[in-house]
């Protein structure tokens, strides 16, 4: 009898609707308003790569040891260096990083002995061409500059 009444009054469907109704409460809204509000990603987020420089004199921290290039499973890092004839030290000439093939696994970052190469919290990597995905040293040192729109 109870079952029949439940059936007639569609009780199970109404129960479901009640759950839906309860969830109208604004405290359950979790949608992010990107790009109006940029989400804050975790501190360890593995996003756009960056070559860190010395904050005092702007010189690169990279010692051209090539360890990041060796660690990368995709072989996408190319470290170009030259030996300085006077100081006998390696000097970084160019550094290319192909973000289109990178899977942001973080192995290169772990391999770097001087905390130069770092995967940062920038996550906007889109660009208009395939060539644009290959970052050179200047781009890596300055970081990506995604357009910020005003609404």
């Amino acid at each position, binding site marked *: 009898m109870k079952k029949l009444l439940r*059936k007639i009054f569609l009780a*199970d*469907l109404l*129960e*479901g609707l009640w*759950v*839906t109704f309860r*969830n109208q409460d604004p405290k*359950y809204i*979790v949608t992010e308003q990107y790009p109006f509000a940029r989400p804050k*990603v*975790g*501190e*360890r*987020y*593995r996003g756009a790569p960056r070559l860190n420089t010395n904050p005092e004199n702007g010189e690169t921290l990279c010692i051209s040891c090539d360890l990041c290039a060796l*660690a*990368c*499973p995709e072989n996408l890092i190319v470290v170009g260096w030259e030996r300085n004839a006077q100081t006998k030290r390696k000097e970084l000439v160019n550094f290319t990083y192909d973000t289109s093939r990178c*899977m*942001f*696994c*973080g*192995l290169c970052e*772990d391999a770097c002995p001087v905390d130069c190469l770092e*995967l940062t919290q920038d996550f906007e990597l889109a660009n208009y061409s395939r060539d644009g995905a290959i970052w050179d040293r200047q781009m890596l040192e300055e970081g990506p500059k995604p357009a910020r729109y005003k609404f």
Partner: protein
Amino acid sequence: MAETYLDSTELVLNMGPQHPSTHGVLRVIVKLDGEKVLGTDCVIGYLHRGVEKIAENRTYTQFAPYVDRMDYVASVSNGLGYCLAVEKLLGVEATPRAQVVRVILTELNRIASHLLWLGTHALDIGAITPLFYCMREREYVLNILEKYCGARLTTHAFRIGGLQYETYEGFEQECLAFCDMFLPKADEYEELLTGNRIWVERMRGVGILSAADCKAYGVTGPMIRAAGEKWDLRKAQPYSGYQNYDFDIPTGEFGDNFDRYLVRMEEMRQSVRIVRQAVAALPAGPIMAKVPKVIKPPVGEVYVSIEAPKGELGYYIVSDGSTQPYRVRVRPPSFVNLQALDKMAKGCLVADLVAIIGTTDIVLGEVDR
């Protein structure tokens, strides 16, 4: 003439590879008699990336991120299986702290995987609302993963020999807060679905796969448990310290779609139990065991399997003593479970076929590799 109009020959229909309810690029060739399915034939390989071949050209450390891309909704489990296999090959064991953190993250990932399954499967059956709720709760898990290792889906959270990252501040509290928050939500999903007449009618008695059939096909995971078999590798051959936790293996009775749904719901609750115990038992100490910088395992071969959210996930690795594996073979649960589709689908209706594919819980990245 009337006969040519009302032709009663079999109809062969293509479902997929871009059908929204095949959860990826699966193509099913369906033989139909009207609405009735006479037989199915799966065509796979649209997402083949040659992961096993890639392994032969990478060092052991370098290959670890690739396994995340197989079952991308449960990448932590994939990583765990691979790390355990290489550790066994090397003869090292992760430190106690690393093992407990691994268990916490794997169980959280199991919840995330089941939530995604529940949401998308409910969508297939025609219930849109659970999808939004499931995604919302899954977000909490993904946030924990993001804060822990820096990525949400393809996590690369574990390294051979332990962990790369120490837990962040507030990790335990966040895990416990998620557990507290999640249990009432799970009840809410059940309120929406378990009693819902449309849901029950669509699922009950559809896609039955008996325990004997499961064994014959090698089907594992929630599917064999739904058939009443108490088979869970976490209990059967404990790894990563699962023997220290107290949890039950939920089983079904009939092995139909509805039982699979109930088993997965209960599994999420059991995962919450494990997470709570693991957080309480989190020991201090190092997170990385002593492994050489260049991993060069001795000549030999191993097979290690773990209980991934979808079933038994196995890694078979052959080492020839160099820094690169000679051969890596993955036993993906989805691929094996998918074999039983024809058995389950014979005789059902086309609409039920969607439900059956749904409860098989396949991820095409893993089927095709």
